[in-house]
């Protein structure tokens, strides 16, 4: 690594009270709002330089929306997101372009995330072209070939189209595109969920190697808990638009405080049948409530085994405080 920027003391990514509501509308010409999907409802977290923050939770809890909103891909309802102390929601023009160069994203679906009518050269060269990082087409091509080799692809395949590659290879192309502008921060939006298990390991190892090589910072969104434990330094658990618990990886996996985290972890398969039989699962009843009309008080209370057991009226009435239960271990639960 060359010298770090002076801002190295503060976290690279700071998210404060991020809210993203999607309106539900009706009507043909004059659309009126009939409701709000509270996809992300006020979350805050920071990511240190070189760190990987994992974000887990079941489908529809707002993980993907968080990642996309903090990059400014969806207009936020309120809140702030700072990358290297620059507010991405306030930035315009050249400043916004500069943040876009530094913060990139890798998508879940390797089939939908590459333009089917562009060659690999066009796809990976796009950030170079948009940010004027190379002066001529020949120099861009040279750089694209370097990037292809960097992610473990054959540089001779530069003029091929996405449909000529396998899923894992396409995901590598997506990674090369994200790396092209030499970013410092990458949102990995379930980058391995759409891949075969054998390919998952390759892609995760590639992401780890690249992190070591370039000192990258990741927000790693996933629902594969064992993979998150493998790659992440800290883990945040999301439920219905809120972060319910956040702690260091080992602390969270060994000592989950929030009943939702406990249920989530107990649902992860254990690769040893003997241990698996002895293992006590917490089975949650019911479905995730609608984010249009979330439950009062603690959002988890209608499904929470602890709330049922202890009959604490606060669970139904008061939204739990986000507090540091023990050093570096935060949770939002009345009973934890």
């Amino acid at each position: 690594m060359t010298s770090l920027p002076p801002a190295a003391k503060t976290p690279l990514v700071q998210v404060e009270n991020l809210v993203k509501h999607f309106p539900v509308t009706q009507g043909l010409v004059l659309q009126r709002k009939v409701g709000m999907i509270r996809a992300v409802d006020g979350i805050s977290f920071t990511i240190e330089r070189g760190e990987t923050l994992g974000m887990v939770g079941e489908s529809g809890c707002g993980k993907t929306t968080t990642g996309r909103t903090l990059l400014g891909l969806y207009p936020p309802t309120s809140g702030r997101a700072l990358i290297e102390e620059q507010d991405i929601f306030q930035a315009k023009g050249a400043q916004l372009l500069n943040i876009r160069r530094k913060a990139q994203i890798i998508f879940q679906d390797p089939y939908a995330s590459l333009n089917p009518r562009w060659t690999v050269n066009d796809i990976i060269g796009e950030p170079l072209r948009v940010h004027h990082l190379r002066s001529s087409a020949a120099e861009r091509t040279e750089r694209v070939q370097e990037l292809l080799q960097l992610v473990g692809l054959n540089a001779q395949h530069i003029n091929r189209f996405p449909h000529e590659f396998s899923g894992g290879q396409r995901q590598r192309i997506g990674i090369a595109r994200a790396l092209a502008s030499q970013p410092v921060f990458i949102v990995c939006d379930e980058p391995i969920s759409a891949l075969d298990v054998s390919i998952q390991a390759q892609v995760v190892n590639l992401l780890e190697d690249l992190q070591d090589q370039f000192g990258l910072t990741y927000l790693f969104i996933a629902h594969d808990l064992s993979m998150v434990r493998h790659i992440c330094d800290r883990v945040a658990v999301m439920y219905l638009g809120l972060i319910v618990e956040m702690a260091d990886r080992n602390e969270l996996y060994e000592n989950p405080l929030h009943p939702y985290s406990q249920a989530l972890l107990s649902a992860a398969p254990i690769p040893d049948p003997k241990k698996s039989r002895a293992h006590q699962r917490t089975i949650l009843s019911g479905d995730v409530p609608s984010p249009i009309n979330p439950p009062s008080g603690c959002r988890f209370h209608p499904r929470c085994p602890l709330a049922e057991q202890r009959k604490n009226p606060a669970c139904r009435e008061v939204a739990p405080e986000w507090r540091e239960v023990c050093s570096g271990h935060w949770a939002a639960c009345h009973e934890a």
Partner: protein
Amino acid sequence: MNNPTASPSPIVQLAADDLQTPPLSLRQLTWRRFRRHKMALFGLAMLFVLVAYSYGGMLLVSEEYANHNDTKLRIKPPSNEHLFGTDTVGRDILARTIYGGQISIVIGLTAALLEVLMGVTIGALAGYYGGFLDSLMMRFTEAILNIPQIFLLIVMAKFFGGNLPNVTLMGREYSGSLLVIIAIIGLTSWPYLARIVRSQFLSIKENDFILAARATGTPTWQIIFYHILPNSIAPIVVAATLGVANAITLEAYISFLGLGVKPPTATWGNMLEGAYGYIDQGAYWLWLFPGLLILLTVLSVNFLGDGLRDALDPRSRTV
């Protein structure tokens, strides 16, 4: 940030595959699919013949000859002198179909171009930006679709027609009514295309690669022109091809009603109009040749459009 090329990468390389033949490009695949469509190939060849007929014929007969009337030679059947016979004022029908064909081709191409420009602009704006703009534009489009096109054409032809100065285009002088016909055909046929383009934009803009382009900071005009438009090219090309056939038919229709391009400029449509009063007198050559040419052109263009629809669809895997 350090330079990733400074040190040799520690990342394991995947083995290079040694394919003997390079895989086919999108263009090659498209051509292979098109080639299988025999009727489309026939249409393409037929169109070449018709263009050669209309523009090659120019070298053999002059326009003065096509517009020259000789009252002593009225309604003569095909002979060695006049291969397709002569019309009601003694003009040579072969020469008139040649120059009429040029008009049909010009009208077909330019009216379809106008249709594509309007349809793509309105559809793209509505589909990309959505919201209020989308509602406004689509309600306008539907309002236009609610009025029968033929009715619109007749009213507009009547309203804008009349005596117009002649215009010179590509070394040939045309009746001013030609421009009016092109404009009104173009202006009344775009709504259907606009809806197709809008639906394409609506679906393509939700793809992750559009989000990736935004995350890169690609400007909006590049997202529209480099990302979305090339991906919606198939239905646009097909609609444009069929638009050519449609414009030729419509020109024939309004010329037949006497509202189109004014004689002496020949078009296949106004030649049919001239034949109208003589059909029951057995003068088949008056309508047969221009009618046959319209039929052949429209049929060929439609076959071509069908072939293109199958060939350009990337989801059809048949090679």
